[in-house]
């Protein structure tokens, strides 16, 4: 347990140091503090991880203190008892490794990336705070502790998106992220209320036992799981709550890599994987999750094809990949979903950091139409970016190949249409990724001469994390080698104790070897074809994306992201703004206050009459009383 405390508290201490004393500290200290604290967590996570791998570490589940509890001992009435408790098992330790490992690399990278920013210490304090909340999220032994982390990472996301807070459009993006997430959080809250109401607990272990013991109330399980999934839609940017994620790219690039690609946005996947014992009892919800996931995946991939901002492409790619993960969860392939979370963390973090390196080298340029030929100047960035792009495109034998293949095979087994959509989304993924690679790194440089003079490879604090992450992106897939080829699927075995409630048949493995091999070959060839098309278009034919405003027809529709933001603005934001004005200016000031004044005036007038008969003010008040009671009964009558 001590290890676990240190893992959680180290980043918190880093946060406090940088937040309270960051200004007084020497110039480079904040980055070092930020990185070292996460590194401590990482080392200890490795110890725990190794313990689980070697079988010496047992699952831990204990309350640290009594958080919210009440009830009546006198009447024996069952109250509510929610501890502030931690849970460490194979699932949380996987996330622990990703959060602290990838998190540490990104902290190192940030030392180089944020160098010279006057608010460097603030940046590292937020980053550490994020790691702290993220750790709490995956280590909570009940949903409410998870919810602390859930909201906490949302806050850090808000703070970091709007890190350069002088720019109001960045602030808008941060605010949007927080508010859209809160819409999802309401679902999360209501799901918790249902659980609390029916099972008197939010503790994962207790819930699992209680749900297993009771006869399944099907409608209830559907309601609970759908509500929790709404929470996941917000945090993990699924349709219809995905719109905040592309805007979130306003934050510094390391933030995009850590929060908006590798860790926070996978929280929804974590939550559903953690709640697997509820989801398996609600097949309808699972189906719903799979459909939302795969549709999101396709939708975002289509938009990604038409984007010209290097970070926006990656953002839509992230939404798309998250969609695939939910598809996997929905078809019951929980461990495959987790597998893809891990591999995705490697290659997507690497891609974002690579994009950051490019932006850094070009002094803030993010438009791929103004890039090109960068591999000459930035070889390390290029090669690492290329490896990660191959990985995300599902090219053998890189990590994405294995995880994506597994998810698609499970989808194939579940429903052919879901598989077909998922495969098409993957095809598009390979295409837009290589469109990005070719336009950025190949061909001729299309920027200004001035820019050209200053292009440079980034410093080693930036390139070393890139190299490490690209290596992981290359070999990360070996933790889940396909069983049908006679390999041992290490990750599936490792996670098996977490997914005991999942029926084996649902977890994949029902296909014949031939079919699996066929699917694998099909997926691989789709990826290769997509890359070939991209090569043809952007290298052989030297096509360029259209300049701003030249798109038309369908292309414009996609380029403008199907106008979803505009539609939401029209359907949600504008009406609420209108309502707010109406309620204040008319309902509150005129109607409600008018009635009050009217009651008062009548009372005064009548009081003046009454005063002639009687003598004092009592009559005045009695009349006010009488009138008001009439009003109340009027209200009561109407409202009943």
């Amino acid at each position, binding site marked *: 347990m001590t290890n676990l405390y240190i893992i959680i508290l180290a980043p918190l201490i880093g946060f406090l140091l940088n*937040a309270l004393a960051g200004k007084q500290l020497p110039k480079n200290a904040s980055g070092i503090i930020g990185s070292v604290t996460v590194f401590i967590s990482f080392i200890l996570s490795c110890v725990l991880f190794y313990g689980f791998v070697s079988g010496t570490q047992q699952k831990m589940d204990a309350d640290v203190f*009594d*958080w*919210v509890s*009440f*009830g*009546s001992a*006198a*009447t024996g*009435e069952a*109250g*509510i008892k929610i501890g502030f408790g931690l849970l460490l098992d194979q699932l949380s330790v996987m996330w622990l490794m990703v959060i602290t490992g990838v998190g540490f690399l990104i902290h190192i990278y940030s030392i180089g990336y944020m160098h010279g920013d006057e608010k460097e210490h603030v940046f590292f304090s937020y980053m550490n705070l994020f790691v702290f909340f993220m750790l709490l999220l995956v280590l909570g032994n009940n949903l*409410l502790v998870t*919810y*602390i982390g859930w*909201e*906490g990472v949302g*806050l850090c996301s*808000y703070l970091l998106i*709007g890190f350069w*807070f*002088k720019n*109001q459009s960045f*602030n*808008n993006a941060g*605010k949007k992220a*927080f*508010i859209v997430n*809160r*819409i999802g*959080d*309401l679902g999360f*809250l*209501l799901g918790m*209320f249902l659980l*609390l*109401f029916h099972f008197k607990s939010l503790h994962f272990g207790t819930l699992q036992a209680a749900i297993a013991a009771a006869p399944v109330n099907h409608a209830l399980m559907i309601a609970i799981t759908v509500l929790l999934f709404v929470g996941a839609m917000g945090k993990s940017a699924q349709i219809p709550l995905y719109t905040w994620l592309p805007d979130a790219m306003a934050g510094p690039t390391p933030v995009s890599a850590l929060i908006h690609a590798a860790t926070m946005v996978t929280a929804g996947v974590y939550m559903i994987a953690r709640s697997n014992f509820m989801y398996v009892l609600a097949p309808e919800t699972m189906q719903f999750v799979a459909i939302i996931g795969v549709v999101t995946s396709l939708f975002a991939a289509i938009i990604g094809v038409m984007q010209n901002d290097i970070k926006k492409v990656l953002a839509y790619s992230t939404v798309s990949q998250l969609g695939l993960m939910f598809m996997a969860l929905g078809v019951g392939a929980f461990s495959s979903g987790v597998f893809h979370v891990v591999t995705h963390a490697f290659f997507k973090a690497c891609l974002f950091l690579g994009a950051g390196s490019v932006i850094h080298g070009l002094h803030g340029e993010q438009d791929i139409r103004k890039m090109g030929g960068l591999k000459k100047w930035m070889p390390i960035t290029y090669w690492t970016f290329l490896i990660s792009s191959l990985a995300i495109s599902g090219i053998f034998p890189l990590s994405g190949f294995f995880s994506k293949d597994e998810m698609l095979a499970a989808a194939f087994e579940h429903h052919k249409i879901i598989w077909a959509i998922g495969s098409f989304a993957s095809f598009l993924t390979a295409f837009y990724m290589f469109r990005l690679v070719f336009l950025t790194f190949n061909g001729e440089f299309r920027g200004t001469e001035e820019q050209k003079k200053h292009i440079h490879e980034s410093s080693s604090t930036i390139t070393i994390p890139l190299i490490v992450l690209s290596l992981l992106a290359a070999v990360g897939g070996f933790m889940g080698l396909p069983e049908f080829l006679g390999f041992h699927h290490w990750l599936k075995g490792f996670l098996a104790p977490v997914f005991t409630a999942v029926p084996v048949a649902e977890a994949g493995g029902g296909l014949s070897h031939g079919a699996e091999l066929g699917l694998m070959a099909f997926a691989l060839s789709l990826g290769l074809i997509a890359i070939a098309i991209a090569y043809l278009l952007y290298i052989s034919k030297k096509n360029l994306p259209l300049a701003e405003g030249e798109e038309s027809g369908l292309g414009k529709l996609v380029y403008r992201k199907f106008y979803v933001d505009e539609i939401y603005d029209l359907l949600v934001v504008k009406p*609420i*703004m209108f*309502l*707010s*004005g109406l*309620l*204040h200016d008319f309902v*509150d000031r005129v109607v*409600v*206050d008018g*009635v*009050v004044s009217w009651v*008062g005036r009548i009372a005064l007038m009548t009081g003046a009459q009454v005063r002639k008969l009687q003598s004092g003010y009592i009559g005045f*008040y009695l009349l*006010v*009383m009488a009138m*008001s*009671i009439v009003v*109340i009964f009027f*209200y*009561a009558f109407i*409202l*009943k």
Partner: protein
Amino acid sequence: MLLLIVLFFPLVAALITYLLGNRYAGKAALLFSVLELVASLVLIPAYRNADALNISYLTEWIQNPHILFQVSVDGLSLLMVLLTTALIPVIILSSLSKEPENQRSFYALILLMQFALVGVFTATDAFLYYIFWELALIPIYFIALLWGEGKDKEFRNRAIFKFFIYTMAGSLFMLLGFIYLYQYAGGFGSSELYGLHLSDKEQTFLFWAFFVSFAVKIPVFPFHTWQPDAYKEAPAVGTMLLAGIMLKMGLYSLLRWLLPVLPHGVMLWTPVVMVLGVIGVIYGSVIAIRQSDLKKLFAYSSLAHVGLITAGIFSMTRAGFQGSVVQMVAHGVNVVGLFFAAEIIYRRTGTLDISKLGGIRNVAPKFAAVFMIIMLASVALPITNGFIGEFLLLFGVYEYNTILGAIAGITVILAAVYLFRMYQNVMLGETNELTAKFTDLTPTEFAAFVPVVAAIFIFGIYPKPIMELAQPALDIIMNYALK
């Protein structure tokens, strides 16, 4: 004995402060309020040990009608007393650097107010309680009227007068209600009033008589229209007293003087109150979105918060009860913090108009951090004090009725909308001519924020002391209310 000291000390202190004159009034008042806080803290162990001599006092007061001078504390009263005694020093501290005119009257009135508030929360004889209730109105009326900040004096007079008449008129219903009850009970003691047998018709009339007087004070929609203007026109100290402590009188009274006294009336009319409460939640939140005046924005936000507390109380669930107590404390702390932040902005820029502000974070990072923490507590982010209260209240409402609970839950989204919007427009972006020279917190101002921020985190992480303290009292109230 101790309780009497806690009760009467502020009265004595008010007198001494007035006599000391303008020069020392502020510092003396601060000292006295801190001493009062210490004294009230000693009540905790006395209460825990059931030290009857120190936590209650009873003597005959008036023979006919039979009125007792009866005060005592249970966990609920104690929490409210502690909230009062803890917030008054903060409120006084927040005003020190401003040096209001005619200080001796100003601080004497604050302490007099404290006397009345402690009286309201400790009186267990209804008549005595009523006297304190009305007494509390007098100092706040003068504070708001004479030290008000609104530039339009005519408008201020009207707004404050409206507040005075409205709450005064509301209170008279309560008095009539108590007098009516007296003819059955033969006394005003809470023990005599609890569990009276009354017909449903009587319960209905009495319910509304009491509810209206409390609802005006809280305020519950649609009895709230005095609130935004009164909050806006009153000086910061007045607004903090009103929103931080005084409205808790109404919420506290629901628990102490309504639920256990008129269980049938409550049962009959709960649906109406629940709907009013939830309307208040959404109504206040939606209006807050477009408010351009900082204090009015916080006023409407407060309307939403107290609407939820009211609904939580009437949900008649343990979660709702506990949530209401936790949230009363949290709301008191947070709203004082918010209005103090507004005051600081007003002092430096001379405006509370959100659209004229912006960029303050560039020049005042300390203030920005503190303001953000208080704002987040108000948004009910976990590990701030606002979270557990809101969570339990929403759960209570949800237990009462799923749909109402879900609707009330929308506050989770709306609070983020109006508060983040406000924070962005006031604090972020580039500075302008009004905010460019905004100076960061002075040590005195910072000192006033320290207890607020500390309370936000302490009770956010560990709300158990509040819940434990309140539990026995809430159990008793619930037993009467469910009879």
